[in-house]
């Protein structure tokens, strides 16, 4: 098999290896109308997203917005990115990344949503949306300790109930800790 002379309009040798010219495989070409049609659908869905955000659907606003975004993403991925006609393995890769991302988010939220339920952090847990006033003008300033939160307000009360170091403080914690603490004796 002979190598043709590499001309300026041909990919150059890479790492000293010259590619050889062969017949190109047949490409799958979509009509321009399909591409413009998808853009039209995407623009329409964008308008719908903005419009429905103005309505007050309560708890359904976010799922609806995500549903519309998901539809737009499906159109971009399947047609613009050609996944619909591609080897299914690439689609599997793409979907798997979303699957693993879901596992990541769900397991993290199982933790954060359950904070304070089984441990003595309940006293220190920053209540949702409670504003803790730290500065007279209510504005955080650079240099102000980051995390001026309920911990600052509550930690003195917490330390009074749970003295530093577990050697002397067995009696203090909530019931669930008494048994394992006693077992350490």
């Amino acid at each position, binding site marked *: 098999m002979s190598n043709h002379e590499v*001309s300026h309009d041909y990919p150059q040798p890479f790492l000293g*290896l010259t590619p050889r010219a062969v017949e190109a495989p047949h490409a799958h070409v979509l009509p321009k109308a399909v591409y413009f049609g998808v853009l039209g659908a995407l623009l329409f869905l964008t308008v719908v997203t903005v419009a429905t*955000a103005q309505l007050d659907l309560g708890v359904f606003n976010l799922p609806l917005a*995500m549903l519309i975004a998901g539809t737009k993403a499906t159109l*971009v991925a399947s047609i613009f990115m050609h996944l619909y006609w591609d080897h299914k393995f690439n689609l599997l*890769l793409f979907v798997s990344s979303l699957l693993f991302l879901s596992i990541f988010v769900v397991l993290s*939220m199982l933790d954060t949503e359950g904070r304070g339920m089984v441990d003595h952090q309940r006293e220190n847990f920053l209540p949702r949306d409670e504003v803790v006033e730290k500065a007279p003008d209510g*504005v955080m300033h650079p240099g102000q300790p980051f995390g001026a939160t309920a911990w600052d307000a509550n930690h003195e009360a917490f330390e009074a109930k749970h003295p530093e170091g577990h050697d002397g403080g067995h009696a203090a914690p909530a019931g669930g800790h008494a048994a394992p603490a006693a077992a350490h004796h």
Partner: protein
Amino acid sequence: MSPTEGKFPLAQHFSDPEQQLDSNKLGMWLFLVTEILLFGGLFCAYIIFRSLHPVAFHECHKLLDWKLGGINTVVLLISSLTAALAIRAAQVNDKAGIKLNIIITILCAVTFMVIKLVFEWPAKFDHGYLPGYNFMGHVANPDQAHIFFGLYFLMTGLHGIHVVIGIILFSWLLIKTYKGQFHSGWWQPLELGGLYWHVVDLIWIFLFPLFYLAG
């Protein structure tokens, strides 16, 4: 007419063109999976903080300009179209079409960055809406607002860096197009650049409603 005109450049370590095309595209998709996981981690942070502070996040949404965000969404969608059309133009040997579509893609990307960096962000800085620790805005709940703005600047900023990388990428592809390196026999660099650009667009498709639209 050059003997390599319209031919596929088969690299020495591949046995046939299909294998080369498939391998390159698989490699690109693997990279795109890492991009999804990168932004996915940040989306996870957003989801958790939003569920912890729904009221504060709702109030902070209103401080963002959804019209500019909406224009940026439209701009990126158009650039996605032209990136795909550039690939199609190469497939049918429309050299002028490749150039035109790549140029429009780059112009849309630049427009996106200009709207973000010239119109959006300075307006936020003027109001004192700064990321995290530096937040100085006068809002009802600064302790939670700084989380929102920390996430906003980080996620849209990282996305903006990806847009700039896309501009550099497509400029490189434009140079190769002017050298005549893309035709019906070989257009895969355009395809891979397009895939990257579409993922950048996909991320914005989710960033826009989550940050700009208060449900």
